């Protein structure tokens, strides 16, 4: 009976820990996939992977950066799958309802989609989550110098992708 209690408690505790981050995690997924259903699915899959591999997390206090890393992996999986499955599908939003999206936002989406995944994850964590380079380095388990390089390269790629729209926004 005691064993059962402990097991149940572990599930609940894990739920609590992940749930405290649910909007942040969902937000990151949404920033990648821009679709409610896909973002929820990725949150579910990342939770599943984290739950299965939870014993490998040496420091439970670092659950959040670890979860973010898994979630970003799942997002990249989904983007690859989507690219392969839907090559010519127009941009869509949840429920198939296209919002009245501004040109600027669509251009940004298009540009972000074409930024290398490893640079894009730094852009998301820095500009969406407002994280410092040190914090991003911890999440992605890379040296801070590498993160700084990726950030600069990401911004440069973004700039290049948006060239041509430049008069509109940079002026």
């Amino acid at each position: 009976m005691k064993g059962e209690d402990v097991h149940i408690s572990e599930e609940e505790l894990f739920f609590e820990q992940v749930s405290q981050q649910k909007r942040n995690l969902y937000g990151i997924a949404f920033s990648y996939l821009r679709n409610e259903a896909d973002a929820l699915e990725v949150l579910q899959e990342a939770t599943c992977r984290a739950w299965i591999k939870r014993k490998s997390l040496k420091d439970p206090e670092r659950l959040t950066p670890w979860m973010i890393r898994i979630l970003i992996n799942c997002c990249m999986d989904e983007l690859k799958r989507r690219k392969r499955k839907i090559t010519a599908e127009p941009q869509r939003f949840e429920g198939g309802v296209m919002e009245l999206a501004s040109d600027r936002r669509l251009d940004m989406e298009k540009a972000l989609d074409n930024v290398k995944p490893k640079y894009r994850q730094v852009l998301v964590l820095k500009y969406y989550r407002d994280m410092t380079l040190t914090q991003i380095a911890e999440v992605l388990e890379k040296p801070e110098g590498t993160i700084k390089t990726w950030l600069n390269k990401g911004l440069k790629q973004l700039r290049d992708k948006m060239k041509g729209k430049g008069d509109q926004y940079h002026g």
Partner: protein
Amino acid sequence: MAEPEENLLKDYFQNMITKADELSDLKLDAAIHGGILRGSRKRFSLNRGFTIVVLAAMAAALFVIVPWLQSNFEPEHAQLPPKSWGEFEVFRPIIKDNISLKSALEAGIVQTIGVSSEEKDGYMLTLNGVVADKKSMIALYTFQNKTQHDVLLHGGSLDNATSNTTSGQSSFFVIDSDNIGKPGVTRMLIQYMWSEDQEGLKELVANMSVTPQTPEAMLSSSDKYRTTLSVPFTLETDQLQKNSRTVTVNRSLNIAGQKIVVEQAYIAATGIYVDIIPYQKGNTMQINSLISPKIILGKGKNAKVLNITEHGLGTETLIFYNDNLDKDSRMTLEVEGIEGLEKSKRDLVINTETSTIIKAPDNRLTISDEKTVEKDGVLALTLFTPKEEGKESLSYGLGISDNFVDGTGSGHFMFRPDHFTYSTTGEPRHDEKGSTTTFFFNVGSEKLPQPLTFNLTFYSNPIQETDRVKIR
């Protein structure tokens, strides 16, 4: 100076934040529960004690303490001989606790589908049947794994075949825990929550992904290990209306002088969806939880109890099982109490230098000397919740908002060492007297004028007083 791209990115992501904030806690919690459930490869047993850990970050939200102790039906009903489910009989072992589905099968309102995906990489998925309403769809699947290795099933989604948009998101898997993922045949049910209004929905494609359970496949960012199976099918849309009705209630539960408005109930094949409004102007308490909400069907000796579902812990909608065999009996929502705190007691005043609690709702809260990985600037508070006679479920929650005021009235924010959280919760410790949980708050190590005043967003304070509202 920020580059133009940086400003554009910030603007762009700000829009994303707004969008992400619009999603209900119900869907997010369901996704997390679904992930854990999928990963643990077992189902929750409704007969086990199920203790809700109160989430500090969600303290403003309302959720529900569920005993999970009663069976969904009174014993005399459980002893009735089961009716045959025909071709769905093979699913009986995995759906015995889902009263909505069980009664739908007995009422004959489950639509037979019987369509299989093509066989890919040794995997095949068959959609045997579905039952749907405008909120949700429950699907019965058979999965065949003809390989020699265990697999993980995931990625359950529904696409609208005509517009190629996602129509439904799997929120809950219940799988034959003995066989899941193993080579051979696995039976499972998946519940989907519809993305939006599903008027006109008809041609659908059910998708499922399969990944071998190997470490490299599980943590890989590549999809080379993943196989996607698709089953196209036609949903009989008249199902969405035929077996459901919306009842306007607009009555209030009145517990300890607090009003909780019950707006309406959607009584349908997959469940009973009750919309409530817990926040009322006249309420002197902040209500955080309802204690043991349930639906009573019928009255007197023949009354049945319909419990809240595994994913029905909503902030504004409670989801209960429905008995599809009983469309006429009196239906009553019963609540055994609330978790609430007088708004006047929400200030928590502490001198963190002398470790003295100056003002708290009661004497169950103490300062602890336990430590976290952050050595300095962490306030550790221990909450003791006494065990009540005959009760197996205890709530042991404490929530404090992320800002506080010092002795001179200046405001401060708590620190977020990992950028996201300013608090962590220790493992609850149980003994014969009750449960003790320690909560850690990163107030920071800066010397501040004392005392510090915190705002309690949640404080476990159950008030047991039963009230009922008639639904039909």
